């Protein structure tokens, strides 16, 4: 194991009786990384965080923080800080004492403690709240205090457990930016749990997508978004999610011919101008064709571009302000196309849809794995 890793989780298993919550988790991160654990509820992401924090005892495997084996160490000795979903502020103490609690425990001199608390309060813009009790704060302010308590000690690793899920939608966006700003300002190493894939995409330097206690994919937001390893990741990340259409892929000389059936009995025929990979050597096969909504547009074709178009029936048209989403029945699923806001389209009409196959993904129809 390289010495400079701030966190390394090796072959981690966690079982509660017969329930296998975490199955052979292997994750490592470099200092300064913002690692986001994301997945649907019950995927084990919070349990993994809890194991890293030491609040949950692992069943087997190793956890190293900054090179030290912390697998069976008390949370207090791991040199980490955690921001809880419920904030978990001490209601009987002022904001100042809440933030300085970790320093108080470590018997840091009063003057130094005060200086550090005010430095953090300044960073989080909560200096004017220092004498208040948590009950007198709004949700966003409590969130800032909880982050302040974590930041003030300058620990090796920060753990965030769904910190924004108790805030309203607007505040969530503001605080998301705030967290990103703090990460950029401090260069802290952060492990962040969320079920919100947009939070994951916007905050992370790397994302860990989990499902049923198994890591599905680890990669940069760009990799996760553009090259999902399986249909689950493709579907989970992105909003609206990737269209997974059943169709037939036929490898031909230098390109792949795609046939996507429509309910009208015809099929949409497209050409993917990439050399067929090894997965297609066995001739024509049924596959899941993954196209993001932004790859299905009303863009006009220009000569020589990689774009191609097909006439499709728009079943539902949903104007969303900046874009208009159109539901098209394609490949036994309801595919969503992302049209421009002022596209002159109406539900129930045929319209020409432009397909951009430069970022198409193929998945095995039974296993869901990327081809």
């Amino acid at each position, binding site marked *: 194991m390289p010495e400079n890793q701030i966190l390394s989780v090796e072959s981690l298993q966690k079982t509660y009786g017969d329930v296998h919550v975490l199955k052979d988790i292997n994750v490592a991160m470099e200092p300064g990384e913002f690692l986001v654990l994301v997945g649907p509820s019950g995927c084990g992401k919070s349990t993994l965080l809890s194991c890293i924090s030491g609040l949950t005892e692992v069943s087997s495997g190793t956890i190293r923080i900054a090179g030290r084996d912390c697998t069976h160490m008390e949370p207090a000795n791991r040199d980490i800080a955690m921001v809880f979903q419920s904030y*978990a502020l001490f209601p*009987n103490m002022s904001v100042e004492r809440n933030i300085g609690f970790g320093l108080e425990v470590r018997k840091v001199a009063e003057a130094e403690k005060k200086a550090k608390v005010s430095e953090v309060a300044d960073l989080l813009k909560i200096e004017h709240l220092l004498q208040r009790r948590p009950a007198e704060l709004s*949700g966003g302010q409590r969130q800032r205090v909880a982050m302040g308590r974590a930041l003030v000690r300058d620990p090796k690793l920060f753990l965030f457990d769904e910190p924004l899920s108790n805030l309203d939608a607007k505040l969530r966006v503001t605080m998301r930016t705030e967290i990103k700003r703090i990460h950029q300002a401090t260069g802290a190493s952060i492990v962040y749990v969320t079920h919100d894939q947009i939070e994951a995409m916007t905050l992370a330097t790397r994302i860990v997508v989990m499902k049923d206690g198994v890591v599905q994919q680890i990669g940069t937001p760009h990799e996760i978004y553009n090259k999902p390893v399986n249909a689950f990741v493709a579907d989970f990340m992105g909003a609206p999610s990737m269209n997974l259409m059943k169709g037939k892929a036929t490898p031909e000389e230098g390109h792949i011919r795609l046939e996507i059936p429509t309910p009208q009995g015809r099929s949409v025929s497209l050409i993917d101008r990439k050399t067929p990979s090894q997965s297609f050597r066995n001739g024509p096969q049924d596959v899941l064709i993954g196209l993001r909504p932004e790859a299905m547009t009303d863009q006009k074709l220009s000569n020589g571009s990689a774009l191609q178009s097909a006439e499709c029936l728009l079943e539902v048209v949903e104007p969303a302000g900046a874009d208009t989403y159109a539901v098209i029945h394609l490949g036994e699923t309801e595919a969503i196309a992302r049209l421009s806001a002022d596209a002159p389209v109406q539900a129930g009409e045929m319209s020409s849809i432009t397909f951009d196959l430069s970022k198409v993904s193929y998945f095995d129809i039974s296993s869901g794995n990327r081809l």
Partner: protein
Amino acid sequence: MRRTMLQSVFLYSCVVALALFTIAPLLWLVTMSISAPTDLTEVPLRWIPSEFDFSRYGALLNIDGGSGERFLSALRNSILTAGGATVIALMLAIPAAYSFSRRGASMVLLFAFLATIMMPPITYILPLYSTFSAFGMLNKTTTLIIVYTAMLLPFATWLMKANIDVLPVEVEQAAFMEGASTSYTIRTVVLPLALPAIAATAMLSFLVAWDEFFYALIFTNDLSAKTLPVAIADFSAGRVTDYGVIASVGVMATLPPAILAICFQKFIVSGLVAGSVKG
């Protein structure tokens, strides 16, 4: 929702009936304590005393008089035993309750504790009496404190456990994460949050010990250790029973728990956890 006239009448009659039911005996006790002795023996009973006679209170508060000495030493013993037992029981019950609630201490143990208070006191009297007698500890306030502590402990532990169970566990986890030890966390985080529960437990424990009669009757025999319930019984044991005196002692005996309840009332308010978790 607005009530109809009939509903209001029904509701308020229930309130009046309940109030009468609970207050009437107390009122009668106070009336008895200030009635002339002749009023109390009249047939039919005289509900409103012919004259107000506060002399019994004066006598009870006079340390030099016979009944005053008996009352005041019993009051002192009661405060010492009930207060002492409550304080010791709480000091032991809080860490015990924390272990049961948060550290997975065996529930079997807790139920075994509780089983001890299911047994009637009479079953313990004989072994306890012979033990204390062998150590020469009969008729001592300390002895009663030991017995009462044992009696209060299971109950106080149970009550505290139920109250610690509902405190948000993340707040403690946050303290551990910040590097605090268990005892530091209990002192600075758990106890302040559990203050209403502690006040309630203390009050209930104090009342149980204050009212205890049986052990006190058996283990004490003179002014140096007798508690109020036993002393009250003594006042009625003479050949001539003055109901007025007994009533006065009864009124005076209710005062310390009543004062305690008023003092603790401000602690027993909900909402101390507010602002800790969620919004």
